[in-house]
């Protein structure tokens, strides 16, 4: 294992993040604040308590997940697509490193950025609503697992994408709807039976449910099921990445 190479990729990627610090931090903070103002204060004040917590607090885990998932994907997909786009990708192929180092470097950096943003949103949320975290360790575990698994997914997306449009289309058409319909703003139990069943096919439901359990101790699905779902998703992404590097798909063509 070439740790020096991993560190180099990681540091280089983090530098890119800090160079565009306004975009990287301000954008998610502002959009989350808007959600709190609109859903938490304006609309939320007219909604009764959800599962024992105020609506403003109820949406905190969902909002963090919404941003963390989109950030993990966009950071990782852009991180690996950009070298392909400008042609510096050759350097990764000629370096004495295997795909393991490349993945740890890029996915690690993307996940770290998303994690930082997640924490910032958590702090921002504190300014708007009052809430406490019942299982802080579980919350951190869920946050870390989510950033890593979706950064892996973003990595695959970045390898697959042939242009910037393709890079945007999957998050836009698939991921955002899945996250919105995954219970960011409501409890799955509020849905009619039919839609509840449909929702069970949405992997994001398990994430948000588990994450919310870490905050308030209530969940739509058992916590073990949530962990299993996220583990499965991570395993599938790792399998796909392993296959990509084994066959050279979109890399050594």
């Amino acid at each position: 294992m070439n740790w020096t190479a991993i560190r180099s990729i990681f540091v280089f990627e983090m530098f890119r993040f800090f160079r565009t610090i306004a975009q990287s931090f301000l954008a998610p903070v502002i959009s989350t604040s808007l959600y709190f103002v609109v859903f938490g204060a304006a609309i939320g004040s007219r909604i009764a308590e959800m599962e024992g917590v105020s609506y403003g607090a109820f949406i905190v885990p969902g909002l963090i997940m919404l941003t963390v998932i989109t950030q993990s994907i966009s950071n990782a997909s852009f991180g690996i697509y950009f070298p392909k786009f400008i042609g510096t990708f050759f350097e990764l192929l000629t370096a004495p490193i295997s795909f393991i180092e490349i993945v740890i470097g890029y996915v690690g950096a993307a996940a770290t950025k998303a994690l930082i943003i997640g924490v910032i949103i958590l702090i921002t949320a504190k300014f708007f609503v009052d809430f406490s975290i019942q299982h802080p360790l579980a919350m951190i575990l869920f946050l870390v697992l989510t950033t890593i698994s979706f950064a892996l997914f973003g990595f695959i997306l970045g390898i697959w994408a042939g242009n910037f449009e393709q890079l945007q289309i999957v998050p836009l058409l698939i991921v955002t709807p899945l996250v919105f319909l995954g219970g960011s703003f409501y409890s799955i139990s509020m849905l009619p039976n039919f839609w509840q069943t449909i929702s069970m096919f949405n992997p994001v439901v398990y994430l948000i449910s588990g994450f919310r359990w870490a905050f308030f101790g209530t969940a739509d699905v058992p916590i073990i099921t949530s962990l299993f779902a996220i583990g499965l998703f991570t395993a599938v992404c790792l399998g796909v990445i392993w296959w990509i590097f084994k066959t050279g798909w979109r890399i050594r063509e």
Partner: protein
Amino acid sequence: MADIVEIKNLRKSYKDGFEALKGVNLGIREGEILALLGPNGAGKTTLISTICGITTATGGSVTVGGYDIVDDFRAARSMIGLVPQEINLEPFERVINTVRFSRGLFGKGRDDAAVEKVLKQLSLWDKKDNQIRELSGGMKRRVLIAKALAHDPRVLFLDEPTAGVDVELRKDMWEVVAGLKADGVTIILTTHYIEEAEAIADRVGVIAKGELMLVEDKETLMQRMGQKELEVQLTKSIDALPESLQSDALRLSEDGKALIYSYDTRAERTGITKLLAQVADAGLVLRDVVTRQSSLEEIFVGLVHDKDKEDAA
């Protein structure tokens, strides 16, 4: 000198059946500058890409410093630096950061002195904090070389380093290459400028249609180039050379209308005066006198042309 890179029967074919490399065998000696000449699409870049790990070979093997590029890819690649044909750089990154990144990527720990040495060697030190997009084309090429050298490779591949570069910059680049050779780096460069191969290479290889047509010391090639032919055209054709003119260097053309004399321009005496006197003594009347020189370009074009005809047949 030992071979630092050994290429054995290297083949590369694509799914559509196109064969980019058709069994290339080549030994690259430590410390030399080898120029690979060939027209566009000959397989020069494919050869380099395969050795460096950008594409995978269909067959054959390559070792660098004794390490197989597939089985021992970490050891083999640590010894290699590649300067690509295209200027592929992060536009918003600072020069020194990209060079540091390249060094780290190849597993070498941060070493500011080493990075400084490379940047100074390429006259980039005063540009080290500039963003790459602010640099001129020539400077960008230097950054590419600096990145490739950041991990102290023993073998450096330069893929068309002077394509589309003006004359001054080309000479500049040759000086850089000469300096690297003096440091003991083995250099393989591809080019389609014959003068470039003549100017800096120790050996010259010619690639056409995925095959290595020839690899020879430049000196040997230059000697071939030093050979000149003098054609003495006659007013009347003759059947055979007169007794008095018989020599190894002289022959009669097929139609009997000309005498063809081979000589070395760099020899102290070319023997032309003597020959012309002998021709006059033999009673032959001259119509015209023509001299011809075989250049590296002719050798090169001839080889590629022969290959075309061979393939057509």
